[in-house]
């Protein structure tokens, strides 16, 4: 039994949709980078007593923002590390 079933396709330029499609990890990283920056800035400059009280004393914007930036970095790191491998992606 073949490991990778042949996709039935009209044209066959790119070997698989996965390599034709952009890398999703970059998009995820982008999302969290932008969110992270905005939240961190809000946490630093737009947080007062009221916001702290709401979240039980935690500066939620700041911490969430930082966590998101870390996640973005992790995804970017993952993309980088597997860059050399994508060139050898099996054709099908």
């Amino acid at each position, binding site marked *: 039994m073949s490991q990778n079933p042949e996709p039935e*396709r*009209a044209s066959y330029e790119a070997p698989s949709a*996965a390599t*034709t499609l952009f890398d*999703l990890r970059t*998009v995820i990283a982008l999302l969290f980078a932008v*969110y992270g920056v905005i939240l961190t800035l809000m*946490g630093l400059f737009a947080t007062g007593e009221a916001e702290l009280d709401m979240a039980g004393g*935690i500066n939620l914007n700041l911490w*969430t923002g930082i966590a998101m930036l870390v996640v973005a970095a992790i995804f970017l790191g993952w993309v980088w590390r597997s860059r050399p491998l994508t060139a050898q992606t099996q054709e099908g």
Partner: protein
Amino acid sequence: MVTQTVVLAQADQRLDTIWIDYVFVAFYFVLVLGIGVLARRSISSSLDFLLSGRSLPAWITGLAFISANLGAIELIGMTANGAQYGVPTVHYYWIGAIPAMVFLGIVMMPFYYGSKARSVPEFLRKRFNTTTQRVQAVSFALASVLIAGVNLFALGLVIEALLGWSLQLAIPVAALVVLSYTFLGGLSAGIYNEVLQFFVILALLIPLTVAGLARVGGWSGLQERVAAGPGGLGDLSSWPGTSLTEIGTPFLSVLGIVFGLGFVLSFGYWTTNFAEVQRALAAKSMSAARRTPIIGAFPKALIPIVIVIPGMIAAVLVPRLGALKRGEATDVTYNNALSLLMGEVLPNGVLGVAVAGLLAAFMAGMAANISSLNTVFTYDIWQDWLRPGRPDLYYLKVGRAVTVIGCLLAIGTAFIAGSYQNIMTYIQTLFSFFNAPLFAIFILGLFWKRMTGPAGWTGLVAGTISAVIVDRLVAAGVLEVSGQAGAFLGASAAFVMGIAVAVVVSLATRPKPDAELVGLVWSLTPKETRMHSTTGEDAGWYRSPTLLGVLVLVLTAGLYLIVP
């Protein structure tokens, strides 16, 4: 009646959103639509559009698998259950999902993926006969449109209450966004967006849980306040879950949970629901396909932490929910638990992320239904039945047309769903009608080669009728159980009747010759064909489906031990 509640709620539950919160939402939409546009370039056939050309890696299909299930119904409904019943809600995850997901990956996926069937109905045609394929395709199409509508309605309610848009505006706008990216980018756009949605939903739930716990004084503080509340200690321990089932006898309650929920409803949904299975079929290899549901099982096991706990927190922190639990008159329902807690503990900023997360959850649910609908309709109803023999590009166009029509119909059924008070119960009931019978014939057909073609569709029909009868009996008060337990009972009845009828019919009709059933029946499929490659991209101990399956089961058992 529901509209009244909503109008009242509107004034009181409006979130204090400011402009910056909308920046988060807008940016998220930009990415979602961008993914749709970019994915379009990879589409050159109907298989690309409807099944991503069977080429996606396991981590993507695995996360999409679980995200397709994390719709607005799941979020709103499960936090509602957390607020209403407390810890027993975990059963929906640990018994109600994990074992079935592992079973799907390890046992059933080789048959699905190996058969090269493009949909569950097509698999049924191969195993049984064309009539079974058609009965199931129609039943599934109907179920998809109804469920997509429920997702849409749930989201419409949320948007209306939180942001002040009217239902008539919120529902079509939301539908339009989903339509845009699924129309352009097909299943690939849907799957990529589901993975994105998964992370945004986490970005909603994790800060919510953290902030909520901080407000109530941590886990021990929460325990104290819950124990002192109307739910008492029953809310804090998962067994016997009598408040959940409303079955007074603990033994019967446990039985109801384990058999009704854990086996029939759970296996019925996860092993046969095409909205889920489709994500695994889009994987690039047998190994990846088998790993898909198992990879999805890990987050599924852990997510209750950030869904059940906020539900419980909401019940003690939000005064109006506390009043509801004590049985006092109030203008909120448990379905409002999530949004009430959001308004209570999240500052602007994270609040915007949370709103984006809710919208993401809705889109994940609805897109999954629409994408599975268009695959089943295009292949099983249109190509195999009504208009066979056309070139592939014709069917690609049909797929796109069905996407549009499906979204429009969902808008219609959304307003039907609005007439139900508890959407979780409504959903479970739909599952008992549509999924439980399918599971019955599926599992019988897999392990009993004597089962014949006609037995397939007669079993389906008998099972569905039984479930409907049980539902009507519960609705009429003849069976005195809760709505949820009614769904468990209906599912069990459907399963038993489906199998019984299938057996009787099988004995009276002729089965297909063995040669035609190779690869479709357990006893006729040699072990080698059920294996997957363990070389190249599929190598590595951490890529073994069996090992991963065992790991997640151990994790779940461990979680049950930790939780009271």
